[in-house]
C-alpha cells in the first residue's frame, strides 16, 4: 500500500487534538487521532452520505491504519463504487481513491461523534454510538 497523508477538514483539527491529545491525559477516549478518524469513518459510512472538505489538513499517514482497518475501507469502497481496480496494491491511484472516499465519510461522521461522545464517560458514549444504542447507561 502506498504511503499517503490522511486528511481531515481543518476546522475539526482542534476536536481531533482534544479527543486524542495528550492534554486530556488518561481521560482521552482515543489513544491516537487515527482511532478517532476510523470511528468517524465507520459512523459516517453507516449514515451513508459523504461530506466533502472545505479545507484539507493532513494529520497522519496511512501506515497508521491496521490491516483490518484498511481492508474494511477497501471493502466499503468496493461496495459503494463497485470499482475493483482500486484494489491493486501497487496502484497509488487506487489507494488514493479509497482514501479520499473514506476521508469524506470520516468528515461526515465527525459531527456525530462530536455530538455524542461528550459526556463524563466518553468511552461508554463511544461504545453506545458504535452499538447504535439510543440511550446512555
Amino acid at each position, binding site marked *: 500500500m502506498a504511503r499517503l497523508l490522511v486528511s481531515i477538514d481543518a476546522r475539526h483539527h482542534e476536536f481531533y487534538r482534544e479527543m486524542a491529545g495528550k492534554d486530556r491525559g488518561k481521560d482521552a477516549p482515543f489513544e491516537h487521532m487515527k482511532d478517532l478518524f476510523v470511528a468517524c469513518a*465507520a459512523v459516517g*459510512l453507516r449514515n451513508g452520505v459523504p461530506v466533502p472538505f472545505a479545507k484539507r489538513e493532513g494529520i497522519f499517514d496511512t501506515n497508521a491504519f491496521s490491516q483490518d482497518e484498511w*481492508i*474494511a475501507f477497501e*471493502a466499503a469502497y468496493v*461496495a459503494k463504487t463497485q470499482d475493483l481496480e482500486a484494489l491493486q496494491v501497487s496502484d497509488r491511484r487506487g489507494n488514493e481513491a479509497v482514501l479520499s472516499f473514506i476521508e469524506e465519510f470520516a468528515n461526515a461522521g465527525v459531527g456525530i461523534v462530536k455530538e455524542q461522545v461528550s459526556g463524563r464517560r466518553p*468511552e461508554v458514549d*463511544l461504545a453506545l454510538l*458504535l452499538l447504535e444504542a439510543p440511550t446512555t447507561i
Partner: protein
Amino acid sequence: MILRRLTLSNIRAYATTATLTFAPPGARNTTLIHGLNGAGKTTLFEALNWVLYGDIVKYPGHLLNESLLRSVGEGDTITGSVSLEFEDAGEKYFLSRGVVGALTGGEVSEKQSGVEMYTIDALGNSKLVKGGDQRILQMLPSAIRTFFFFDGDKIAEFTRPGKEQDRQITRAVNDVLHLELLNRASQHLGDIARQINKKIAERGTAEVKDLQARLERQLALRDQLAENRRLIVAELEDATVRKGQIDHRYRDIENVAKQAARRSQLETEVRVCASRVEAAKVGLMQANLAAFSLPMSGVLAEAEDLLEEKRKKGEIPSDYKDQFLLDLLEHHRCICDRDLRPGSDPYIRVEQLLQQVVPNGLQEKALLLHGEAKRLLKSHDACKAAMLRCMSDIDSAHKDLDALQHELDEVNAALGAESHTDVLELESQRLSLEAEIGKHRTSLGGLEVQIESARAAVERLEKEFHAESQRQQGLKTLTREAAIASRAGNEIAAIRERLIGELRTDLSSEATRIFKAFTWKTDFFERVEVGEDYLLQLFDVNGRDMRGVMSMGETQLLSLAFILAMTAISDHQAPLVIDTPLARLDRNVRLNLAAALPDLTSQLVLFVTDTEMTPEVRSSLADRVGAEYRLSFSDGISQIVDGGL
C-alpha cells in the same frame, strides 16, 4: 367527652363559617386534619381549647378575622364565634363563645363573651346550663386537659432535660392525683398541731415549755433534713444524668476508634475500586477499537455480496478462465470445432467475456477482501459481547465506588465531629462526677439515718410533751386536739406517699406499654420508670439509665408516652386532640405512632402537616380514619375541604 362538631365563624383566617364534624368513637375513631404550615390547623386547635376553656395561648386578643377587622368602619362592630357540639356521660351539649371587634378612635379592640352552654334533648330542644365554665371543668379539669389536648410544644416541655422537666412532671402528677390538696391538708394539720403546742406551752409548766421548745427544734430539724434530702436527691439525679451523658460520649469514642479503622479500610477499598473502574475503562477502549467496523456492517455485507456474486459467476478466481479464453482466441477454433476467426460473432463474444473477468493481478486481492469482509462481519457478535461486558464492568465498578465513597464520606463526617474530643477532659469530668455521686450517696445514706432518727425523736418528744401536758389541768383538751391534728397530718402524708407510689407504678407500667408500642427498638428498651421525685427514666435491657443518651426522637417519644400514660390513668374520658405530633420523629417511629395512637383513645383528632402526612403514614392510619379534612389557604383565607371520607 365525645366531640361531635366544631364550627368557626370569622375566626382568624376562617373568614366565613367553617365546620368540622369529628369521627365518632369506634373502629374508625380518627379525625385527620392536614394541610401546609399556616393553613389553619393551629387555629382549629386553639378554637377547640377556647370554646371549652376560654383561653387562647397563641393568639391572645387576636381572634377575629383580620381582613374583616380591617374593613370595619369607625363605630362599627363585627362578630365571630366558635361553637362545639359534644356529648358527655350520655348527655348532648352545645357550647358557644363569641367575640366582638370594634374600631374606636382608630384602634381595633376585641371583646370576648362568656360561654353559653345548652343541653340538647332527644327531640332537639335546648336548655341553658348555668355555670357552663364550671360544668366543663367538672367534665375535664383544665389542668388535666393539657394531657388530652396538646401540641408539639407540650411534648417539648417534657423533653427539656433537668429540673424544669422534673418540675413539669411533678406538677402533672400533682394535678392528676389532686396531691396539692393532700399536701396542703397535711401541712395545714401539722401547722395546726404546732400552733396548739405553742398555746399549750404558753399555759404549761416550765417542763412543758421546755419539751415544746425541744419538739419545735426537732420538728424544724426534721423538716430541714427532709429539705436537704430533697436537694441532695435532685443533685444526685442531676449528676447521674450528666454521668450518663459522659458514658454516652465514651461509647462514641469507642466508636471513633472503630470508625477510624473502618475509614482506613474504606480508603483502601476505594483505591482498589477506582483501579477497577480505570481497568474497565481501558478494557472498553480496547473493545471499542476492535469494534471499529461495527457501524460498517452494512457496507461490509454489501461488499461480501458483490464479491460472492462475482465468485459464483466465475469471475473470480479468473486465471483459468482467462487462459482458456486467450487460448480460444489464439487458435481461432473451439474444442467444439466452432470457428473463432477475428470479427466473427463468437470471437466478439469471447472478447467481451475476457473483458469482464477480474484481471489476474487482482484476483487474490478480491478473494482476500471477500474472506476478510466475511471475517469482520463474523467478529461483530464477539465485539458487541466484549463491549457490553466492559460497560457492565464499568457500571458495576462505578456503583461499588459510589457506595464506598458515600460510606467513606459518612465516616469522615462522623469522625470530623469527634475530632476535637478531649478524652482526658472527659475522663476527668467522669471521675469528678463519680466522686460527686459517691459523695451524694454517702450524704443521702447519712441523711436517711438522721431523718429516721429525727422522726423517732419527734415522735418521742411529742409523746413526752403530750404526756406532760396531759398531767396539767386545763390543757387536756388542747393536748388531745394537738395529738389528733398531728396524727391526722401524719396519716394524710402517709396516704399521699402511698398514692404517689401507686401512681408511679401505674404510670410507669402504662408509659412502658405505650413507649414500646411506639418505638421500633423494642428489644433494646426495657421499661419506663417515673422515679423518685417523679423523674422520668428510660432503661435499656441491661438496666442502664438511658437519660441523656437518647436521641431527640426517642426523647420526644418518651414524653409522648408519659403524656398519654397520664391520660390513661387520669380516669377522665376525653378525646385525644394532638397538633403536629409526628414532625420530629423518624420514619419507623412515625409509622408505629400512627398505627398505635388510635388504639390509645376512644376518639382521636390529629392535626398534621403535609410533610408529616407521608403516604406510609396515611396507609398506616387508613383503616382508622373516620373523617378527613384538608385545609387550604389562599388569599389570606383558610378553608376546610372535606377529605372525601
